């Protein structure tokens, strides 16, 4: 029978274990229950069970039902279902349409059977949805939207491709070898483009490659295959070694997908090799294609082609009757080919700096490819590492100062990523190289995920990159905790994760634990150098802010005070360093926020004045640095908010005007920089409130209208992403209130109605957040009901 006391202990232990970092769980368990084999066995049994994703929310009815055939739903999101166009193991595909304006938008909607995707995978898909939606390539079926139906089945809305699966198409059309080579190169081009955007397909098979009537290749189902990597999601995607894994198509899936090793771009290269073999079955004399397939499908990922481009180059060489690299090993031909392809891409970006870096990078790509011989591994690491450093740090910062460089920065980041992944795929990397790779991933995550002009705003990517850094950190923590740089690297990873979990993933509790762990790792070496001091201070800042997110203001205040005391105690030479000053200003800004909420208006004002002063000094010392401009904006805007709520309208006006002026300059520098546009919208929103407090209504209305116009632009840039819509609705809510105060009820109602319509649309799409559901949306309906039918002063003087 069940031993209740042991079961209770095991449950409690397992629950606590879930909060321990993945890589440290074994060690933690050994420490907690190493002397209790019975208990340990129970916890480990639960860990094994946790890796299965069998028990899905709300699945009870389906679990007792042998249901095979389900009726299609009438609608999915904004789309009307027209008919079922296909069904397979994963679920059914429907044709959907949506009337938008004058034409009907036709899409394919794939509804995945409930229970097939783990919750962790669904979560990951939702995180990556924006990245996938931005993946625009003529040979990749466009992803428009995704979500969950009412019964919890994930669905994907994608470009409708009227075509046939690859192998069927070539058979039916009697396509010869040259045509097949062309198709294969198109496929490679699409996969390479995806890799450039950090997306690995994971399940490339002939049935995921469609060919349209016109002979155009379209890859489908990017990024939705189950990942074999360790995950930290609710459902616990952990190492799975069974063939039960979804869309792990035998014959095409790379061997590392079965072992649970990290899946990188190399897995797609493997699948491409298998696909090539099926598409163009080699005859007895086809040594070249055999060599290409063999090289692409090596057991060990690092023995395969290092990039899809390299594989494509070989196929092109074979087609053109040129020597094939795979036959003789690395040779000049492939390098030339590679350089040639990249030179075009680099020139197109039209930046001198980029060209230079491009040339430098290419030399090293060649180097990396050519010198794969074992004895030269050391040298290869060093050189590749050096270039990754240059790309991610010096070159990125350089390009970042050039106006309008968003695209260039993205390209640099992607190139940097390719090196890191290539290095990371090498199992024999020395410890110092691994430390460098992890720090490189952290840096790249900052670049990708940092909101605003300092980064590219791609949160999903940042999460993935930090996951890779964490995997390395966990491995080294277990195998070489005391090696030079390991401790610092782990703290660096944790501090960045804390920030990401706080600002992007909305998980303050986890962020707090990570921030505290980062501090404890550095405790004895926090003042050893500027880098450590920065990490330590940043971790304190994140810890403090995690309290603010939980609305625990006194605790937050105390932690931020500790942060300020730590920085104040550093030697003068350190304090003057830019990275320390940046953290200090941010920490003071948050300290001001904590004081404001406690509330302690006098202390809040002092802290915020100091934060603004430090930010001003930084911005003056490094003019034109977007990160510093942004920090100054944030401090000024927040100070305006605090002044406003303490009735200091004139000071609020001064502060917010300065903030808006900064945002405006940033927008001028790059009109497509979503980060800068967002600042302008946020600044104008507060400015409208301040102006309306001062009863300067014409100016307030102007601020409202510009704020909304910018929000519209952001929505268009984000292609109607729910986050952007939500933010616009929020601006409209505030803007309508400014009109209302001014007595212009007609305009107030016009804007509130628009906000309500956005909420309604989000609800239809299943993207309404809990806060919107309980606060924003009902509030808009309430305002409209009380004062808009017809527009009048229905809310009283203070809505």
């Amino acid at each position, binding site marked *: 029978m069940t031993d209740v006391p042991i079961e209770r202990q095991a449950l409690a232990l397992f629950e606590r274990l879930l909060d321990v970092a993945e890589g440290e769980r074994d060690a933690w368990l050994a420490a907690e229950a190493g002397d209790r084999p019975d208990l340990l066995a129970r916890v480990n049994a639960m860990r094994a069970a946790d890796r299965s994703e069998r028990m899905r929310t709300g699945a009870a009815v389906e679990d007792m039902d042998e249901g095979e055939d389900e009726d299609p739903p009438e609608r999915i999101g904004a789309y009307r279902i027209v008919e079922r166009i296909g069904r397979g193991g994963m679920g059914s595909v429907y044709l959907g349409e949506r009337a938008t304006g004058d034409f009907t938008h036709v899409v394919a909607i794939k509804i995945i059977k409930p229970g097939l995707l783990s919750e962790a995978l669904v979560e990951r898909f939702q995180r990556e949805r924006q990245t996938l939606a931005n993946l625009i390539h003529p040979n990749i079926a466009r992803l428009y939207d995704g979500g969950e*139906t009412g019964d*919890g089945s994930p669905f994907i809305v994608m470009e409708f491709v009227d075509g046939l699966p690859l192998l069927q198409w070539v058979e039916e059309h009697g396509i010869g070898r040259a045509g097949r080579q062309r198709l294969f190169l198109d496929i490679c081009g699409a996969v390479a483009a995806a890799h450039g955007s950090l997306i690995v397909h994971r399940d490339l098979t002939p049935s995921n490659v469609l060919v349209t009537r016109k002979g155009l290749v379209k890859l489908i189902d990017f990024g939705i295959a189950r990942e074999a990597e360790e995950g930290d999601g609710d459902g616990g995607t952990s190492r799975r070694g069974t063939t039960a894994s979804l869309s792990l198509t035998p014959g095409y899936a790379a061997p590392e997908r079965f072992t649970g090793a990290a899946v990188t771009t190399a897995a797609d290269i493997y699948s491409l090799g298998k696909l090539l073999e099926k598409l163009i079955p080699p005859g007895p004399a086809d040594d070249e294609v055999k060599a290409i397939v063999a090289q692409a499908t090596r057991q060990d990922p690092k023995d395969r082609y290092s990039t899809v481009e390299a594989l494509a180059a070989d196929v092109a060489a074979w087609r053109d009757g040129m020597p094939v690299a795979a036959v003789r090993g690395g040779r000049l031909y492939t390098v030339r080919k590679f350089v040639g392809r990249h030179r075009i891409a680099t020139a197109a970006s039209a930046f001198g700096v980029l060209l230079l870096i491009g040339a430098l990078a290419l030399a090293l790509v060649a180097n990396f490819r050519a010198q794969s011989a074992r004895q030269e591994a050391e040298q290869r690491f060093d050189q590749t590492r050096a270039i990754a450093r240059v790309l991610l740090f010096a070159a990125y910062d350089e390009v970042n100062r050039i106006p309008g460089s968003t695209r260039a920065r993205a390209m640099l980041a992607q190139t940097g990523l390719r090196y890191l992944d290539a290095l990371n795929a090498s199992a024999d990397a020395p410890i110092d190289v691994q430390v460098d790779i992890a720090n490189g991933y952290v840096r790249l995550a900052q670049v990708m995920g940092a909101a605003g002009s300092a980064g590219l705003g791609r949160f999903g990517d940042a999460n993935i990159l930090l996951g890779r850094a964490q995997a390395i950190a966990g491995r080294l923590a277990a195998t070489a905790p005391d090696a030079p740089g390991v401790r610092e690297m782990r703290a660096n990873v944790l501090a960045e994760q804390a920030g990401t979990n706080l600002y992007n993933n909305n998980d303050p509790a986890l962020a707090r634990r990570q921030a505290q762990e980062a501090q404890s790792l550095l405790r004895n070496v926090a003042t050893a150098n500027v880098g450590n001091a920065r990490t330590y201070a940043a971790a304190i800042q994140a810890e403090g802010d995690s309290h603010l997110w939980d609305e625990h203001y006194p605790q937050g205040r105390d932690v931020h005070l500790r942060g300020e005391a730590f920085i104040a105690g550093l030697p003068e030479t350190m304090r003057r360093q830019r990275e320390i000053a940046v953290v200090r200003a941010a920490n003071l800004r948050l300290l001001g926020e904590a004081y404001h909420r406690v509330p302690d208006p006098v202390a809040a004002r002092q802290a915020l004045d100091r934060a603004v002063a430090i930010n001003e000094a930084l911005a003056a010392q490094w003019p034109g640095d977007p990160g510093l401009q942004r920090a100054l904006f944030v401090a000024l805007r927040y100070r305006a908010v605090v002044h406003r709520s303490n009735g200091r309208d004139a000071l609020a006006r001064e502060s917010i005007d300065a903030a808006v002026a900064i945002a405006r300059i940033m927008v001028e520098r790059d009109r497509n920089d979503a980060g800068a546009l967002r600042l302008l919208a946020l600044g104008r929103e507060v400015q409208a409130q301040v102006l309306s407090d001062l009863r300067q209504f014409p100016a307030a209305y102007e601020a409202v209208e510009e704020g909304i116009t910018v929000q519209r632009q952001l929505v268009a840039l984000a292609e109607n992403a729910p986050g952007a819509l939500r933010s616009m609705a929020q601006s409209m809510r505030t803007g309508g209130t400014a009109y209302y105060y001014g007595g212009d009820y007609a305009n107030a109602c016009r804007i509130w109605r628009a906000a309500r319509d956005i909420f309604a649309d989000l609800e239809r799409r299943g993207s309404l957040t809990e806060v919107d559901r309980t606060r924003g949306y009902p509030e808009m309906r309430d305002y409209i009901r009380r004062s808009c039918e017809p527009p009048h002063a229905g809310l009283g003087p203070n809505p």
Partner: protein
Amino acid sequence: MRSEPSTNILLAEWQGGKHSARDRLIARLHPELDQIAAARLRREHNSSLSTGDLINDAMMQLLNVEGGSVADRAHFVALASRVMRNVLVDHARAKVAAKRRHARVELCTAIDGEQRFDLIQLESALIRLGAIDSQLTELVEMRYFGGMTTADVAVVTGLSEPTVKRRWRVARAWLVDALANPIDDD
């Protein structure tokens, strides 16, 4: 005027601590859910609906939805989840009896990734889990049988949402393990 109090009133009374109100709510819910579940299993009902939708259906019929608060709704669904557990397990037992053979629980036989639970085995595991930690059983009722969101479960239990998620994961792991390694009671 109706002689019976409305479901909304019963719900308010139950939340106010009146046990008889709860029993009357269950009495009202049971046939409703039973009918819905039976129809669903006979495929009369739109079979793409999940348990959560079915319960929602029942709620629409029994509750004046416009009037209720979020907390009312969550508590109602929590109660319905418990009733749903009984209803579904009863149906599963009836089905087995009709087939005159025990549907063996098939573990690890993934065809196209589809895996189903044997609800009877699950019920026996749930009873064991209840003896160890009754809160976990309630979470399973609400999540698995009721299809409730973690946010709604948080409203009902008073736990934070992260705690709900974490505890649900714990319950799930324990149950999956228990089903994989059943204890023979007989």
